[in-house]
């Protein structure tokens, strides 16, 4: 992986064909993936063919970008979405907004529990931690499988699109998700650039175009110049946390306010979010729309006029970004030859009107705004697979400046935003004293003057500087951005020619080791991974049953009539056997654990039933209210401790008393 983390291996690249065997590309077999905030899709354009999107068995091309961890096996797509209201905190939506972000950056509403800790934010779902990178990998796996089923061959190579405005951490997170899903990511392609490719804007000869891309959670504006098969991005801008989701949220919070509800539960919130989204979509066609959220007692109506007023602040933000991006490209709106609309959110009439008003021309909308990005990705994937496709060259840019933190926390820019990639910058550092053998360097990304106000990309140490008089050691550090806009750092001491060790610690994203582990798990050990998960789940189950039976036995096992001697020995044997199985970490067979649990359940069934009968009888025998309450409380206490397991067993026996 030619990224920042493994930068210190860069020097080995010139070794003859190192690792090239793995990298052999199969012409015409790569796929293009639009990994979106609200939905994703996969398209192919094999060996120069026109692009087409691949549909699932139901004929649906759009896969909802939803991953459910409510069950033992993750579910993806509409099946996952169906569990949203029931398990609002275990069903992950819009994970793209969490990619490459720390929990301190998540400043929008969401129903999830985030695990404590620094670096990449992680969700706590179903008793374990899941990073948005892993969740994205589940989506990519689903699309990869769909493509393999449709094409009838294995798929390895892919182009995955990212918002043009994604920073290094967000891009790296996306690339890692691809790796975990078992894909070789040929390119992280900017979504607006993909759209320009799909439109074939280069075929009209020369031209200047703006691509306005408003998706579910991200907004991009790119200005491109097209000429003789070259797609040259002149400038790009946007907001990687602004999209149709924000329209939904604006509607939802207006509805909540109208209804006077201040603290909805997670499941009420998800029900409301689903309805807000439906209403938004309906208002693209209708002038008014009925709103109904039974869970919150909301029955009302929303007009398009009110909707447009609610989303106006977001639209204004996008237009402001258009203005400054045009300025970066040193162009006026009137110099453009066309404006292209991309992204599902550009279906909203107010969005179209705002774009038309600003650019002074009707935008192009010939291609389905939901699919155009995947089409462009498919064409690019085909090209990069080595297929015989008419040459086109993509010259994309880095969206945010790259800088180094200097004395006093001030940033010194080394690569300006909108520089065409790949590009390199060199910086020479010197020593302050003879004793100094290293220095630490902090790389940030962003436009602000103070390092703290920008995104921290990585910190690294230069080590092994030669001992030279002050100012004599000269270390040249090269910062290289590749065609994915991912950073690599290398260093050389100029006086001695010694290459320096560069140890890079990325601020966000998963560590190299963790990615490797996840890749191993998902690729080579898919079977083992499944077995390990099954084992862990069985162990949790067994632990619950053991705790319940042990507690009941210790507290009530000697009460007259509850546990006949004939049952006592087998129960104790099963209980001790189960406890031994819990202790024995060497048991790696889920079935063995399951057998221990089933044996314990069977031998303690009658005991559990009698305890319940005793509690009920206590009520029927006309005892005092206080005594009944005490008996019930005792059962209740036990019930809680055993997590409801006993109750299920009794129900399955049918009415007994």
């Amino acid at each position: 992986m030619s990224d920042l983390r493994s930068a210190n291996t860069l020097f080995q690249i010139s070794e003859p064909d190192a690792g090239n065997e793995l990298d052999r590309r199969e012409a015409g077999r790569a796929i293009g993936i639009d990994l979106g905030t609200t939905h994703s899709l996969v398209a192919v354009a094999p060996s120069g063919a026109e692009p087409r999107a691949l549909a699932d068995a139901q004929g649906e091309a759009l896969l909802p970008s939803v991953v459910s961890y409510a069950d033992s096996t993750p579910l993806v797509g509409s099946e996952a979405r169906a569990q949203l209201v029931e398990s609002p905190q275990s069903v992950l939506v819009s994970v793209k907004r969490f990619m490459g972000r720390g929990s301190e950056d998540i400043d929008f509403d969401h129903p999830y529990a985030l695990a404590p800790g620094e670096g990449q934010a992680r969700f706590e779902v179903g008793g374990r931690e899941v990073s948005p990178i892993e969740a994205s990998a589940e989506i990519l796996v689903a699309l990869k499988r769909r493509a393999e089923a449709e094409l009838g061959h294995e798929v390895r190579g892919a182009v995955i699109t990212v918002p043009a405005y994604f920073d290094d951490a967000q891009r790296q997170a996306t690339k890692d998700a691809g790796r975990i899903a078992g894909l070789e990511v040929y390119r992280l392609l900017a979504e607006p650039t993909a759209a320009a490719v799909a439109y074939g804007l280069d075929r009209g000869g020369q031209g200047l175009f703006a691509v306005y891309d408003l998706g579910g959670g991200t907004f991009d504006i790119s200005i491109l110049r097209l000429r003789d098969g070259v797609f040259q991005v002149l400038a790009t801008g946007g907001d990687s946390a602004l999209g149709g989701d924000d329209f939904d949220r604006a509607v939802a919070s207006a509805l909540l306010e109208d209804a006077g509800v201040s603290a909805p539960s997670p499941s009420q919130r998800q029900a409301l979010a689903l309805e807000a989204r439906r209403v938004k979509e309906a208002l693209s066609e209708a002038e008014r729309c009925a709103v109904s959220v039974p869970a919150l007692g909301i029955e009302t109506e929303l007009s398009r006029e009110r909707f447009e007023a609610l989303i106006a602040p977001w639209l204004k933000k996008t237009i402001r970004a258009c203005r400054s991006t045009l300025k970066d490209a040193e162009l006026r709106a009137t110099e453009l030859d066309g404006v292209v609309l991309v992204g599902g959110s550009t279906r909203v009439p107010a969005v179209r009107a705002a774009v038309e008003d600003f650019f002074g021309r009707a935008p192009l909308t010939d291609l389905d705004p939901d699919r155009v990005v995947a089409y462009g990705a498919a064409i690019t994937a085909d090209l990069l697979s080595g297929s015989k496709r008419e040459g086109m060259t993509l010259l994309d840019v880095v969206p945010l400046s790259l800088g180094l933190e200097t004395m006093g926390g001030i940033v010194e820019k080394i690569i300006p935003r909108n520089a065409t990639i790949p590009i390199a910058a060199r910086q020479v550092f010197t020593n302050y004293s003879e004793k100094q053998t290293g220095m630490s360097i902090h790389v940030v990304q962003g436009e602000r003057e103070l390092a703290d106000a920008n995104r921290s990309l990585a910190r690294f140490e230069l080590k092994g500087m030669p001992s030279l008089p002050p100012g004599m050691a000269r270390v040249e550090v090269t910062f290289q951005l590749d065609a994915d806009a991912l950073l690599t750092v290398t260093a050389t001491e100029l006086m001695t020619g010694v290459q320096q060790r560069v140890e890079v610690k990325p601020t966000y994203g998963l560590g190299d080791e963790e990615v490797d582990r996840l890749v191993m798990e998902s690729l080579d050990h898919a079977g083992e991974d499944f077995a390990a998960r099954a084992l862990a789940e069985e162990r949790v189950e067994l632990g619950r049953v053991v705790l319940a039976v042990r507690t009941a036995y210790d507290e009530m096992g000697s009460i007259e009539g509850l546990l006949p001697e004939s049952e006592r020995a087998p129960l104790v044997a099963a209980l001790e056997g189960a406890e031994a199985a819990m202790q024995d970490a060497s048991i790696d067979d889920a079935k063995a654990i399951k057998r221990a649990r089933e044996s314990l359940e069977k031998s303690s069934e009658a005991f559990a039933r009698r305890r319940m009968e005793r509690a009920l009888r206590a009520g029927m025998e006309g005892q005092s209210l206080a005594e009944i309450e005490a008996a019930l409380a005792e059962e209740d206490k036990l019930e809680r401790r055993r997590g409801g397991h006993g109750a299920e067993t009794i129900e399955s026996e049918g009415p007994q008393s």
Partner: protein
Amino acid sequence: MTSSEASPPAPLERFDPSRNHFERLGLAPAVALDREALESAYLERSRRVHPDRFVTADAATQRLAMEHAAAVNEAYQVLRSPLRRAEYLVKLGGIDLDSSDAGTGAPKPTQAFLIEMIERREGLEAATEAGLEALEDLADELADEREAIVDAAVKALESGEVAKAAEALVHARYLARLADEIENAKESAA
């Protein structure tokens, strides 16, 4: 979109790090560079060396393509901007504006110029208090002035007066910083 015979890419030449930006794009060093000539030279070279053309080649070739492409992009980045191009020509003429070396580094601005800058900062403060319109006026005024300074530097370069050009460009850097501050003030005022 198919092409029956996708021509194999022309082999890449050895990468020569000592080439200057003009040589990199095959252009004669010139202060007044024909924009059209620059653009077509850049696109032609980009098409030729872009790493995407070598995806099926060996790793060493891919690395070479990356080096070429990065250098072509850097050359374009510098030469397309009249200001950065002028600074680069001054550098080729022996004065490095990024260095503080007494002999070959940026010339120190005169005391009179520094006093003028202090006064202009005060002017910015006054305009910030007066509001957005005053800031816009100040920005327009400064833009004209910066253009005039770059023109002066270009003229000096054309007549071979590198030191004089360097002096003008140092002034231009001070004004650029002031312009950034005005932009920041405008943003806070908006």
